[in-house]
């Protein structure tokens, strides 16, 4: 019976830890699209997101022995990707421009050009507002809304309760609304 050898995540990780390169490739295949999407939403630039995604995996291979498997694999990868993004933003000469994000690479069957531009502008404003949030709130918002991590997972990696995460989200919404209101002429 030729059943896929790494049916669940734990088995796959065990195989990667044993040095199985094919398992590592399978891990990449399963996760890289989601990591790329998360990073893209953070930076708004497709090329930069690709570079940061690659950098994320480079760090992940080195950090793999320290991954205890308590959280989901993607949650762990997202944490690395988020840190990688922050490091990139904080680099003096490679600052990501949050003021002029590139329009997303939309497919051909997407809405018209004006509409796309408008959406892109709005997405850019929202992204900029999120980036102005305090660190803990920013991570919570991006992890939950832009990477789809459940509150429970975020609570686990932040080592706080789910109630505290919900409070963070509530506070973040209040701040975001204030920031967005200030921007409107």
């Amino acid at each position, binding site marked *: 019976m*030729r*059943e*896929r*050898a790494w049916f669940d995540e734990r088995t796959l990780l065990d195989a*990667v*830890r*044993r*040095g*199985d*390169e*094919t398992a*590592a*490739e*399978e891990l*990449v*295949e399963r996760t*890289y*699209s989601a990591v*790329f*999407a998360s990073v*893209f*939403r953070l930076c708004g630039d*497709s*090329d930069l997101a*690709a570079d940061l*995604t*690659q950098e994320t*995996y*480079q760090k992940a*291979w*080195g950090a*793999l*022995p320290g991954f205890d498997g308590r959280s989901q694999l993607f949650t762990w990868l997202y944490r690395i990707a988020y840190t990688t993004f922050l490091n990139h933003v904080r680099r003096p000469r490679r600052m990501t421009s949050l003021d002029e994000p590139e329009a*997303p*690479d*939309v*497919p*051909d069957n*997407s809405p018209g050009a004006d509409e796309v531009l408008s*959406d892109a502008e*709005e*997405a850019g404003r*929202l992204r900029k507002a*999120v980036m102005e949030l305090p660190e803990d709130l920013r991570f919570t*918002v991006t992890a939950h*809304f*832009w990477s789809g991590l459940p509150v429970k997972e975020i609570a686990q990696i932040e080592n706080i309760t789910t109630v505290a995460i919900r409070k963070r989200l509530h506070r973040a*919404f*209040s701040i*975001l*609304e204030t920031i*967005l209101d200030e921007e409107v002429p």
Partner: protein
Amino acid sequence: MNSKRRAELQRKLSIGEVPRPPEGLAERIKADIPKYLTAETERQRISSSVAFSMRVAASLILLFTSVFVTLHLLEPRGAAKRTSMAANTAPALVPAVTRYAGRAKAADSTAAQPAEEEVRLEIAQDVAGPAATAPASVAPPPPPPPPAARRAAPPETQVAASESANEVGVEGGVVGGVVGGVAGGMIGGSVQEPARTQEREEVSRMAAVPEPDFAPVPPQAVPAPVPASARAAREDARAGTMTITAAAPSIVSQAFGDELSLGQPKSVFGISVDPAVFQDIRAELQNGERPAAGRVDVDALVNYFAGAPARPRRRGVSLEVEASPAPVAADGDRAILRFTVDTAKVDVPARGSVPPVATDVRLDVDIDQKTVESFHRIGGRPAAGHEAMLLHNISVTGLYELSLRPHLKATDRIATVRLTYRGVDDRREHSVERVIRGRDLAGDWARASRRHRLASLGAVWSETLKGTGIDIDIARRAEELATQNPRDERARDLANAANASAGGGG
């Protein structure tokens, strides 16, 4: 904040267009996968290395102890004989002299000259160092020639034969052990093994060939015409080196290279991958001729245009699966499914053999009849699902044309392609599976990967070449592909060929 506004903010945060990852991103990431992924693996590697070193050290200690004990046991008998032996025997070589002196006495106490030759033989062995004698238990030297031949043969010939045999023994033991055990690769074990065997046989021949010529000639009358390779072997041994003689590899390639050579196959999984097919057809088109339909090998042409991956793999085998709407005349229900198997790239010396990367390779393409009304493999013949062995430097592409059922959902499964194989490096069974779903066909053909577009457009062109007429759209699309990337020679080849067949083939 009122709940409506908050909901609106949540909605804005949740939605948002995210483009598909750029082409080749996965390959870029995979290329960064380190060879030794974890500290655990590294520890195992180091511990196995240490264990090997310990075994070698223990063997050496045992050997020296045995020699020392033997010396003490034989000392009273050997001392008397040593005084009657040739005067030029070096004091440092007493153990060897003693041992051979005893043997010579037992065999023929009157034959003083042969005994001296044997002494010289042993000197050379000892000078080669203890490491050269240590693996003798791993790979024993070939059986010695009969006593008569040994006596008749000149000393140099015997020395060369013995040294070569010893060196091959070292190679067999150390290389097999180090490469197989420490580096974690099986190539040293499985691939080099035949070469070592051949070397061993060839060295034996090399040593054996001069013997009939030398037999009638007195050993000291004429200098022995020792082959250059044997001479090099002897000099290496005298210099105390353990390397196999420099001439040995060339001997192997000269003697057995053609028999051993595992060149690139022209067919993999029953799919023709012969690049010469396109060269022939291009030549005909350039001469203004249209190739006969029977000579158009669609598989070979598809594989020519699909080519090798943009970033060659460093290790193992990869499976690439992609689907898109058909490149031309797509009315929404026709799609192209592509699978490509790429093996790692290695540099192979001229006339050398391409090493295997996987064995017991199985490829399964499972097309779901619930979503696909009909299908056929482009190229005609059904692909074979099994290959006993895959070599490095191989890329094989197969295409299916699918006729889809209407009202396809994004999550509907179209096909599953699965590759299983046993890696030569790690001897483990690997399984890679890719699933194509309805959403993978949502985009336009022009958004597919370049390799997919070249392969599928090449397929349509090839099939048209087998029939009558040519769709001018193919030439146009090929021209677009070539213009997008002027450095892509295969795209230019396709554009030129499509233009030639459209213009002159008619």
